């Protein structure tokens, strides 16, 4: 449904998008994830025919974004990052105007208007002037605008920014309900959102794709490493010596020595297997007091931070 081939966008001397290629199947929901300035918005603007690419090609819904720009735009719903709205119009007027520009005829417009207004939780705000709505409501109006013509492809730039938690859940459910009939790309900084709504995650950093996988696979990648947090009372060197023989431990680091209340030390261990029993026995066997022992699996968040702070090239290899 969306084919992106070697896309490049250069602003002056900065490469905002650096040879990006990916595909999105019909009915898929794909999440763009990346730190500020990664190039998410720029990529979306190119796909929506707002900005020209410096190099590369892309197809949306089977049409080339340059040669058949109008056909692409006909099939596209887009929520831009800054949620542009006509502040002097009411919600109904605005959505009607947008619907008309997207080519809906009058009767279809009426039905769709009622549907999106209901789905975006705007029933009681239909006659309100947009300029007087709160930020979250404006966001909902923007979302309604993107979906008014029931487009095949929906591109949403941070659709849940500035929504309240209840509304985030509603919008998330709504987005999920679009799955199957619509192809969606959304960008976000909120990691749980990607795990909950997206079939696939594209992590972008410095204009390059550093990971392209399902949230599940990315989490498995992480969960092969466990992090053990251990607190002991006694000599730190003795603890380190006691842990030495346990081979699955790949890294030991002392987080703090002399904790406030207990006076103990906190260590962090990275292991490739569940060695909690061995660790407990070894420490107690060495005559130390074991105060705490817990194990965490790395979250998507950890991977995100790892992939986007490490050397991009190295990170890309790690995933591949």
């Amino acid at each position: 449904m969306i084919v992106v081939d070697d896309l490049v966008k250069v602003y002056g001397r900065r490469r905002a998008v650096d040879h990006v290629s990916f595909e999105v199947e019909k009915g898929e929901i794909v999440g763009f994830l990346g730190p500020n300035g990664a190039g998410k918005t720029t990529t979306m603007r190119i796909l929506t025919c707002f900005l020209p690419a410096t190099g590369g090609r892309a197809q949306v819904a089977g049409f080339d974004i340059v040669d058949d720009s109008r056909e692409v735009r006909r099939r596209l719903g887009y929520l831009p990052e800054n949620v542009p709205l006509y502040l002097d119009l009411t919600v109904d007027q605005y959505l009607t105007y947008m619907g008309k520009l997207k080519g809906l005829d009058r009767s279809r417009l009426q039905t769709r208007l009622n549907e999106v207004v209901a789905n975006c939780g705007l029933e009681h705000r239909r006659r309100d002037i947009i300029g007087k709505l709160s930020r979250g409501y404006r966001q909902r109006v923007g979302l309604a605008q993107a979906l008014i013509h029931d487009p095949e492809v929906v591109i949403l730039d941070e659709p849940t920014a500035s929504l309240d938690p209840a509304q985030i859940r509603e919008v998330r459910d709504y987005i999920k309900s679009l799955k199957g009939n619509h192809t969606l790309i959304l960008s976000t900084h909120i990691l749980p959102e990607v795990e909950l709504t997206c079939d696939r995650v594209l992590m972008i950093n410095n204009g390059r794709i550093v990971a392209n996988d399902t949230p599940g696979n990315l989490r498995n990648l992480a969960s092969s490493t466990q992090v053990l947090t251990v607190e002991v009372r006694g000599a730190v060197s003795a603890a380190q010596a006691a842990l030495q023989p346990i081979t699955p431990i790949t890294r030991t680091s002392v987080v703090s020595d002399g904790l406030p209340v207990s006076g103990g030390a906190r260590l962090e261990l990275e292991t490739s297997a569940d060695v909690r029993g061995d660790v407990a026995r070894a420490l107690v066997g060495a005559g130390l007091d074991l105060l705490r022992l817990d194990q965490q699996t790395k979250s998507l968040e950890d991977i995100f931070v790892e992939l986007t702070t490490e050397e991009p090239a190295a990170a890309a290899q790690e995933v591949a």
Partner: protein
Amino acid sequence: MRNVLSIARRECRAYFTSAIGYVVMAAFIAFTGLIFFLIVSQPQAVASMDGVFRNLAILLVMLLPLLTMRLLAGERSGDQGIGTIELLLTSPITEWELVLGKFVGSLLYIFALLAVSLIYPFTLGRIGDPDLGTIFAGYVGLLFFCGYCLAFGLFLSSLTNSQIVAAISSIVGLLVIWLSKFLGEVGGGKLGWLAWWSFMDHHEDFWRGLITFSDCAWYLSFIFFFLFAAKQMIASSRWR
């Protein structure tokens, strides 16, 4: 075509609900009313709109850029909303439809303004015996003149993100075009061609009651040229 009308209707309605629209309308009514009163209260007043049309042109050169400044610059930044140009350029409308819609919308508002001013010829008809043909030609000329100013302002509005810059540069630009007539006259032979570029001579014919093909063609081709230039400016944002 449908898109042109949708955009035109939205733009025209925006003038009726915005402060700038009211300011322009109030200035127009106050100014024309004053001029009309001063002219008809002269001892040897003749029943003609000539004086009103003549003085109105300078006012319109100042006012119309205030209407056009928001048309495109305001979609990029402004109190209507920020970056709404992104909505327009990602919807399935052509650049021509966008530019024409904006132009027609502002022209419709001018129709409304000029309709209000019909009260003056009507009054003239009650108190004297004006030449209706001349007045009609004057209004046709006024429409062409407004079309010219609006198209010019729309073009300058497509060049910048700032409404203020669009307004000021349009006013200055129109004044320069206006004055090029006098430059042509003063400069004589070598600069004589400058007068052709000014709308003054073409406008003058209409006031005198002449609707000539060449004047209409002159206005229409400049209006077309400015609209085309605005359309190209918008389209160029999509060029590689």
